[in-house]
């Protein structure tokens, strides 16, 4: 059942400062609207509460990728298409491109934004597992100033975020992964190959020294109320050797304590748990140089 379109107001700020001022004045009564790929779907379904929206799509200063010696910064309005087109991301942070490429299809990738994907706070979003595996930080701005939050701490519960009503998510910062030895493994298990919502999503990045796992981070989607970083599993893996025959079993046991999947119309708890374990084992096979 469609929404009553006249019940929605939209205001367009002149720039970031103006946007932040408006947010400071109206707080939660003013909802940011970027590429519309989530909010407009809710509108069609009649599930978007009527009210006022802040059209930030035109804020050019929030769009684009900047690269420094040790970090890559994505403006919040950087689209998936922008991500796909960027050579440094492809070389050092390839899971972002893989995630972008599997989000919707071309028309969605042209409008969907990295920031929107985060603040929509869907546990099934495609980029968050990769952001978690890359140790991202998010930047929030308000008239009170800016602050950075480790992305792993940003989602606090289903659709709950560490974002004040007057704050706008403006950027995502990622440490560069240029050092030798990094192996990346991203796999979205969706309902189909395009235009798909994930049933389980796995992103793992590890730095190997020979067959020793020197450093590892794992992010999961669709298996918890939030995009999930997996510290317990990472702890089991860190400092261990891939040749260790007991490793896969121990890691699988650990990740199944961290993932808390449920049944829904897209999949089952049972399937999600099993496949989470399988993807972790596949990650270890990839690290060991297999498939």
């Amino acid at each position, binding site marked *: 059942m469609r929404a009553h379109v*006249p019940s929605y107001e939209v205001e*367009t700020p002149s720039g970031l400062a103006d946007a932040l001022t408006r947010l400071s004045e109206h707080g939660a009564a003013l909802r940011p609207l970027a590429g519309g*790929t989530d909010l407009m779907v809710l*509108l069609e379904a009649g599930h978007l509460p009527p009210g006022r929206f802040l059209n930030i799509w035109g804020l050019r200063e929030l769009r684009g990728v900047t690269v420094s010696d040790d970090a890559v910064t994505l403006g919040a309005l950087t689209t998936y298409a922008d991500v796909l087109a960027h050579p440094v991301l492809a070389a050092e942070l390839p899971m972002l491109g893989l995630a972008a490429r599997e989000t919707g*299809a*071309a028309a969605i990738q042209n*409008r969907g934004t990295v920031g929107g994907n985060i603040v929509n706070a869907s546990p099934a979003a495609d980029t968050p597992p990769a952001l978690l595996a890359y140790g991202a930080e998010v930047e929030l701005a308000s008239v009170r100033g800016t602050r950075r939050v480790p992305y792993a701490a940003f989602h606090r519960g289903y659709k709950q975020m560490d974002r004040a009503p007057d704050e706008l998510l403006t950027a995502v910062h990622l440490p560069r992964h240029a050092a030798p030895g990094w192996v990346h493994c991203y796999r979205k298990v969706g309902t189909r190959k395009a*235009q798909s919502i994930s049933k389980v999503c796995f992103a793992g990045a590890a730095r190997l020294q020979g067959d020793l796992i020197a450093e590892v981070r794992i992010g999961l989607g669709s298996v918890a109320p939030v995009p999930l970083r997996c510290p317990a599993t990472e702890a089991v893996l860190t400092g261990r050797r891939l040749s260790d025959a007991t490793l896969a079993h121990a890691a699988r046991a650990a990740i199944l304590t961290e993932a808390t999947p449920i049944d829904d119309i897209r999949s089952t708890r049972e399937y999600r748990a099993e496949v989470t374990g399988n993807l972790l084992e596949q990650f270890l096979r990839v690290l060991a140089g297999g498939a």
Partner: protein
Amino acid sequence: MGERTEVRFEVNGREVAVKTWPMGRLLDVLRTEVGLTGTKEGCGEGECGACSVLVDGVLVNACLVPVVQVAGCSVQTVEGLAEDAAVEPLRQAFVRANGAQCGICTPGMLMATVALLREEARPSDARIREALGGNLCRCTGYVRIVQAVREAAAEMAGARADAEVEG
């Protein structure tokens, strides 16, 4: 209640000014206020691609774009495409290869194809399937659509090469 607001933009090279609800979908504005019904609605949620149009040359789902966001932009629809002789081989290929059966997905397929071919003149079949991944067709199984795009790409690339030689 919000208020109707005036939004000015360009459609197929012509200036339009509409007074409409700001959250109104570009799709509805094109079909009703502008009166161009070639852009179709299949799902209203960015899933089927029947409403694909180009905004400033970029492929979007018109059902997911609030009209305020195209203020000052240039929108191209299938009707605009129909005025573009360079795209004629694509239309002919869709008819010839039976890429259009019931026809409801066809305007969107054409727009997505044009976006693809502007990026990549001679895409592989895999690339064509990926680029059309957001355009659902229930009639064809996609076989003849992929064929139509492949044939049109060859013809259009050939025409461009000829033009360069002559030029």
